[in-house]
């Protein structure tokens, strides 16, 4: 049996599979349950400084080969999140705190609290609306990204991962700005929309949403490969992983570990142990002895 243990920015993982941010990670008991189901780590729902209720339903639309969502980043605010962190951590595995904000100060406030709550790393969700430049995201403002990460790196000791948006002209420009981060996480959802032709209107209450699931897998593979090749950083791959082949594809494209979101909806929570078994037998048949030996092997 192949050994699936690995480490990511110094954090030991019993296998390379983590729960992605925003899927079943608002309630501490749910996160604990997912960890007990076989995920090596969970990333929390993205948390901000103040409480947000998010958008009115419909917040998801089931589209062919994926999900479209516009949940609206609901979260209780970091000050109300300690309890959930405590409950999740009862599973004895790493809990990664996903955080967002509009300014470096907000990120720092939330990040320090997350560290206090025992987060093993911070994942910065840079795909949230940015107030200054209307319509744009924090992640498409390289100067702001640089400032946020510089500030955070000075204030917390745990690793900082930058989760990048695929909705940009040139991801390398953002990656360069985020160069001080310990790892890059790609991808967040791809912007999309679904219209119901019988109701003659967009399905999501927010009209626009983010596409995830199988539909975006090849987009995630591309960014994983490109960032691994061009930046040499530690990469965490996410987007459309539903089978062990998908996970291995990300790893060979350069991901040191992967996250699974929509796959939990299409395949259930047993997706974690199932993919682990699949990776393990793939490694056995291909005579690969460790996850690290697969990382980036397809990169030319």
């Amino acid at each position: 049996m192949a050994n699936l243990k690995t480490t990511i920015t110094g954090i030991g993982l019993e296998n390379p599979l983590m729960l992605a941010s925003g899927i079943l990670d608002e309630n501490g008991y749910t996160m604990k349950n997912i960890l007990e189901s076989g995920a090596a780590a969970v990333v929390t729902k993205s948390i901000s400084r103040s409480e947000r209720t998010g958008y009115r339903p419909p917040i998801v639309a089931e589209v062919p080969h994926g999900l479209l969502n516009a949940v609206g980043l609901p979260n209780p605010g970091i000050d109300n999140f300690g309890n959930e962190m405590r409950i999740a951590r009862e599973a004895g595995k790493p809990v990664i705190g996903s955080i967002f904000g509009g300014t470096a100060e907000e990120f720092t406030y939330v990040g320090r609290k997350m560290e206090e709550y025992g987060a093993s790393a911070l994942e910065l969700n840079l795909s949230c609306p940015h107030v200054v430049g209307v319509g744009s995201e924090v992640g498409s403002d390289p100067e702001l990204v640089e400032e946020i990460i510089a500030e955070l790196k000075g204030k917390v000791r745990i690793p900082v991962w930058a989760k990048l948006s695929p909705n940009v002209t040139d991801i390398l420009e953002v990656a360069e700005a985020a160069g001080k981060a310990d790892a890059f996480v790609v991808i967040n959802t791809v912007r999309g929309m679904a219209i119901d032709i019988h109701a003659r209107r967009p399905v999501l209450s927010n009209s626009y949403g983010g596409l995830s699931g199988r539909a975006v897998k090849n987009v995630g593979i591309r960014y994983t490969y490109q960032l691994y090749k061009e930046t040499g950083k530690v990469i965490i791959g996410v987007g459309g992983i539903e089978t062990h082949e998908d996970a291995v594809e990300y790893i060979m494209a350069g991901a040191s570990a992967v996250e699974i979101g929509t796959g939990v909806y299409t395949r259930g929570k047993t997706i974690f142990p199932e993919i682990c078994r699949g990776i393990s037998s793939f490694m056995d048949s291909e005579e690969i002895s460790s996850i690290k030996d697969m990382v980036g092997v397809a990169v030319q």
Partner: protein
Amino acid sequence: MIHSIIERVDRETPTTVSLLFPWDRDVLPGQFIMVWIPGFGEIPISLSYTGKIKGITVKRFGPTSTALTELKAGEKIFFRGPYGNTFRKTGGETLIVGGGSGMAGLLPLITSGSHGVVSARTRTELLFADRFSPERLTAVTDDGSEGIKGFAVEGLKHLDLDEFSMMYVCGPELMLKSVLDYISDKKIDADFSLERQMKCGIGVCDSCSMDGLQLCTQGPVFPKARLLNSREFGREKLSLSGKREKL
């Protein structure tokens, strides 16, 4: 989204209507759909009619449910599903305990052999009480305007629970909790159909969760044994934002 054309609208109580529409799909008692009213919102509603013609029974509450109760025959209804699990089957006499709109999801379980404990705020709101033969009905009202005065659990106290092979319960979570507490040391087994805030209905948003389980995919029906040791049932839930609150 699935859509259908409403075939019939039945007024059940002053605040509650049933909408019946064709939908060629096998569904199970206990399952629900996410009903979308374009421009208003999307809410989980149990299937109260599970035969060839499907139906839902909706109580007016906020904007979405109100818009739903105002739909007319011939209009389109939009929804997705069916979602969720079903009740355990059993032989013998069954006891059906519904509070408020909770009776909607229990309707498909009513047979000529069922005994009902139907509770509501007041007599005009007793939902589907007429589906039980009078000698098998225990009505309970908060204001005492019909039957026993008090909450649903008061109705149970008037019955010999040992007569029933199984109890099916649906209603507000605090009502379910009081029923569970009452039967916790009794022999009778029970299935509880829970209602919590549901934003997605498909097991991703975590808004409906309890003890790490998603009501929308792993519920909404849970057996008595599962709820007895619950850390969250009847105690705590997360708000719209995800803030932990006492129930």
